[in-house]
């Protein structure tokens, strides 16, 4: 059985929580005591109906305000697949939380209210999904019950969204008309929309092909830790512990170490003291090399037949996540893989209006939740791949040196 991580972004008004509640409820993933707890909580509300949204809003302040503030994770499984739902807020002021949630997802559900069609937040959520390189988008055209289950409304929204998707470079888009409130096309097929012949949401989640999204061509292994027992029996044992973040490695493969550029070959691959002939992403393994090479945490071992970029001046898309402004000349710590180095801001090439996609030039500083194309100069060269081809080795974070907080998400584009 495999694993699919997907994100739903939105607020209570969009029907996001109702949709998740429906998915869990109809797939029988809500347990009796959890249901009782929300029944109890629902009774204190005016309408007295079971509020499936209460299942997802975990913090006191979220329940008080009826909004989602931070990302929550939900788990369910069917006989076919195991799912991790990344339940993210949709308001513009929580863009950074959505970016956090989206970073590990393979699929995004973008909710569209059938009455309003493609709206500002549809555009914003789609932009974030595409920027974070999520390969599959499901456009959930919800509240079809409020437009008389009209096929024309559905088709118009599909055409409208397809225009937007073209600008965003999203690989796979699927459109599903539904009513989360009534359960149409979420888990069970809708009887009110016989004209729709596609899959229900759950059918789609269970069958969408995700194996092809894995990057198996660029062997990348950021070294996390060196295992050296230094006991009499294991005197010469020196294993490099890490996770294969993309590609695969075989015994005998020629490898290059970055940033040093030294080369060697793989002598052995171990997982829990068992030897393997080959290993692929996302396995955590221990590598042994044929020759003595100076390697420590922060180094990147790659297969020599696919070299990464290595540069001190890099271009990247940035989501700024701090309340202190991001300005030219500011210094941060940049982390890519297990490698950290200081960097300074060279340039803000342009800011992106998250609702209209318009590029704004001449911007002097970025504020919390802004997206922009930036140029950074690093103290030491960093080794990476363009995010568009490799999410694992093209994603980086910025850390504030004084507060130690993670303040920015970088999708590296290339050398500047």
């Amino acid at each position, binding site marked *: *059985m*495999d*694993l699919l991580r997907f994100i739903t972004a939105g607020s209570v008004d969009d029907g996001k929580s109702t949709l998740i509640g429906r998915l869990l409820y109809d797939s029988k993933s809500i*347990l*009796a*005591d*959890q249901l009782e*707890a929300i029944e109890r*909580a629902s009774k204190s509300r005016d309408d007295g109906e079971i509020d499936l949204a209460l299942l997802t809003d*975990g*913090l*006191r*302040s979220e*329940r008080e305000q009826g909004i989602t503030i*931070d990302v*929550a*994770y*939900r*788990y369910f*499984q069917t006989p076919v697949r*195991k799912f*991790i739902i990344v339940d993210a807020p949709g308001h513009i002021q929580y863009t950074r*939380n959505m*970016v*956090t949630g989206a*970073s*590990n997802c393979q699929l995004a559900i973008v909710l569209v209210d059938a009455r309003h069609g493609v709206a500002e937040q549809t555009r914003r959520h789609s932009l974030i999904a595409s920027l974070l390189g999520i390969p599959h988008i499901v456009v959930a055209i919800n509240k079809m019950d409020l437009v008389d289950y009209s096929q024309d409304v559905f088709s118009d929204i599909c055409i409208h969204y397809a225009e937007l998707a073209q600008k965003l470079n999203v690989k796979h888009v699927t459109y599903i008309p539904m009513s989360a409130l009534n359960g149409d096309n979420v888990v069970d097929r809708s009887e009110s929309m016989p004209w729709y012949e596609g899959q229900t949401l759950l059918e789609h989640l269970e069958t969408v092909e995700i*194996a092809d999204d894995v990057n198996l061509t660029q062997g990348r292994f950021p070294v*996390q*830790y060196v*295992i050296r*027992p230094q006991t009499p029996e294991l005197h010469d*044992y020196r*294993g490099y*512990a*890490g*996770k294969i*973040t993309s590609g*695969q490695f075989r015994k005998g493969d020629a490898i290059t170490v970055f940033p040093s550029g030294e080369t060697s070959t793989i002598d052995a691959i171990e*997982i*829990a*003291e068992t030897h393997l002939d080959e290993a*692929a992403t*996302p*396995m*955590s393994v221990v590598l042994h090399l044929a020759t003595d090479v100076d390697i420590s*945490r922060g180094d990147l071992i790659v297969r020599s037949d696919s070299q990464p970029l290595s540069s001190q001046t890099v271009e990247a898309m940035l989501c700024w996540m701090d309340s202190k402004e991001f300005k030219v000349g500011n210094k941060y*710590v940049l*982390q890519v*893989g*297990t490698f950290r180095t200081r960097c300074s801001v060279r340039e803000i090439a342009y800011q992106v209006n998250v609702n209209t996609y318009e590029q704004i030039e001449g911007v002097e500083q970025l504020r919390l939740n802004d997206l922009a194309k930036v140029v950074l100069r690093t103290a030491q060269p960093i080794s990476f791949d363009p995010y568009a081809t490799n999410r*694992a080795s093209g*994603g*980086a*974070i910025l*850390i504030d040196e004084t507060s*130690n*907080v*993670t303040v920015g*998400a970088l999708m590296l584009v290339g050398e500047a």
Partner: protein
Amino acid sequence: MKLDYLDQLESEAIHIMREVAGQFERPALLFSGGKDSITLVHLALKAFRPGKFPFPLVHIDTGHNFQEALDYRDAMAERIGEKLIVRYVEDTIREKKLKEPTGRNATRNGLQTFTLLDTIEEFEFDACIGGARRDEEKARAKERVFSVRDEFGSWDPKRQRPELWNLYNGRIHKGENVRVFPISNWTELDVWNYIRREKIQLPSIYFSHDRELLIRDGKLMATAGGVIKPEADDQLVTRRVRFRTVGDISCTAASESMADTLDAVIDEIQATRISERGETRMDDQLSEAAMEDRKKGGYF
């Protein structure tokens, strides 16, 4: 090559443990002898052998633990040859003159936090690895894998650091510490399936056995160790039970069960309609935000 979901979860957890080893100077692994922390130790063996663990095992003993779990804890530390540090809530109560909760359903669960914070200070631990899972409870569903706590151990849900891809930021100021949850993304069922797959031994109380209990507020509470004092209206019974979670005797209820093998336990969990903490933990049922409030106070 397609990895099974358990392989993916395992790899993710090993990666997180190695990040702790790589980023911190004085980490610790909190080990209670319960199934989740036993799983953590198994993952640590996979992450660091043939080397030694880069951290000791630490147990905060409330004095209200099941003897079976304590015996298991000591035997495990002995077998794998790793250092075990035990600190006692009893000592903290005496030294700090803490007032112990009294009354019918009194538990030391909350006092654990004092001993934990003292132990963190004593050894200057900068990271504590724990076996909490996001599926357990709705406040936990919101917590990061690397959860930064201030010097009082407090969790501030509104000021969580962004956590992107598999890049974990463990940079902290002196006095702060990080709670790290490598099995955040595992469910109860995942843990059991993994234990079965890896043939991990568990303390006997996870499997059905005959036991003396008393029925209180509809829950079956163990009389072992005299932790819970029977009162006049408590009914003493002997039942065939097992424990779905193993916490303090004072706040962990038993479930009637005939499941005496891993297969039978897993079948039972798959069929159940009640959540793990809902069935067994008295401490979460205090209020809608019981866990959130305890975490803000420094609880794991």
